[in-house]
């Protein structure tokens, strides 16, 4: 299975672990991740205004690359996934945006949202299959109680992201079961961690993280997993190290015996 892979800025720096373990696991699972050679930063945050064009061009360039490679565009960072998938939806459904972008980029072939954006977790669920992963697990994380932290970016807006049920998602819990551990359900798993506000006012993510962690601990979680480097930072650093937080790929690598 081949995918055009978009890592994004954070996975080359502070979020290296998310990327490194994903690549190791992909090898075991027979998945090839072809990194786009000259990818550009997605901007980290999708701007909802319909007249924002320039801030979305980097995403279109990545999408065009996937279209030309005739493969799906694989993402791993929640933020990149959110931005690129929403831009792709704009290219497919918003004529004004599509016209402005194509008019500027002057591609050999106009791009109209033909590529498919797929998150690594969706790839595990829909392409590899959690049953198949279960078979490949050599070091099951038996007895480990793990709380899935979804955050916002993978799920919302569900009309575009179509990732899972936005209020009662199951993909990360199914993933946790596949690696032999026990998922812990808690209410705050899809509520915001405080995101980029950490730059201006740490009190905001601190308050958010406290609520999320308190909720997860009260339901018996021993650790949390996430797909977002900023969620990980907020829960870990702003959350005051009250609970271990891992990238889901790290635990997958451990279960597959490639950590």
């Amino acid at each position, binding site marked *: 299975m081949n995918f055009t892979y978009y890592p994004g800025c954070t996975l080359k720096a502070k979020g290296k672990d998310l990327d490194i373990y994903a690549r190791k696991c992909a090898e075991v699972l027979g998945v090839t991740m072809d990194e786009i050679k000259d990818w550009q930063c997605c901007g980290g945050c999708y701007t*909802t205004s319909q007249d924002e064009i320039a801030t979305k061009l980097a995403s279109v360039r990545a999408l065009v690359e996937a279209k030309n490679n005739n493969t799906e565009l694989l993402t791993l960072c929640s933020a990149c996934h959110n931005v690129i998938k929403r831009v792709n939806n704009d290219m497919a459904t918003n004529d004004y945006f599509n016209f402005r972008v194509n008019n500027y980029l002057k591609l050999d072939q106009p791009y109209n949202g033909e590529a498919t954006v797929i998150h690594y977790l969706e790839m595990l669920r829909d392409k590899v299959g959690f049953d198949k992963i279960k078979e490949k697990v050599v070091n099951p994380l038996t007895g480990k109680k793990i709380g899935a932290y979804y955050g916002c970016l993978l799920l919302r807006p569900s009309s575009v992201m179509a990732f899972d049920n936005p209020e009662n998602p199951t993909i990360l819990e199914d993933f946790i079961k596949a690696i032999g551990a026990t998922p812990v359900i808690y209410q705050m798993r899809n509520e915001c961690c405080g995101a980029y506000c950490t730059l201006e006012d740490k009190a905001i993510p601190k308050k958010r993280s406290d609520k999320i962690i308190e909720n997860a601990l009260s339901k018996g979680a021993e650790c949390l997993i996430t797909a977002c480097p900023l969620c990980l930072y907020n829960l870990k650093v702003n959350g005051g190290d009250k609970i271990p937080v891992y990238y889901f790929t790290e635990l997958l690598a451990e279960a597959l015996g490639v950590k």
Partner: protein
Amino acid sequence: MQNLKLREKIEEMSGVSVLKCMRCGKCSATCPNYDEMEFHPHQFVYFVEKGEIDKLANSKSIYTCLSCMACVERCPRQVEPAKIIEAVKLLQIRKQGNNHLKPEQVSVSLDPELPAQALTSAFRKYSK
């Protein structure tokens, strides 16, 4: 001051109609940053409808929206307040010299653990 022209501009940018709001308050009830806002999501919808946009534009509340899309997801009428807050904020920061976040503000006390994503998204949100 009532400014209906600006209301039209905001509706055009956000792609949503404030007139669809039925005032249920679900957006503010679900907002994770409610406590940090002077004007809450439902008030953004209300005051844009009234054309009373200056007070929103001059409030710090435009920078405390987390873009978590909870209000967008849970609005039963697809008014999608976060898109309206974003439009009001863009009209402010698009003005010359009106960036909310400047590079020199962050470089000094940067936490070495902070992921690049925090910087890129904050600059995308706060600056043009």
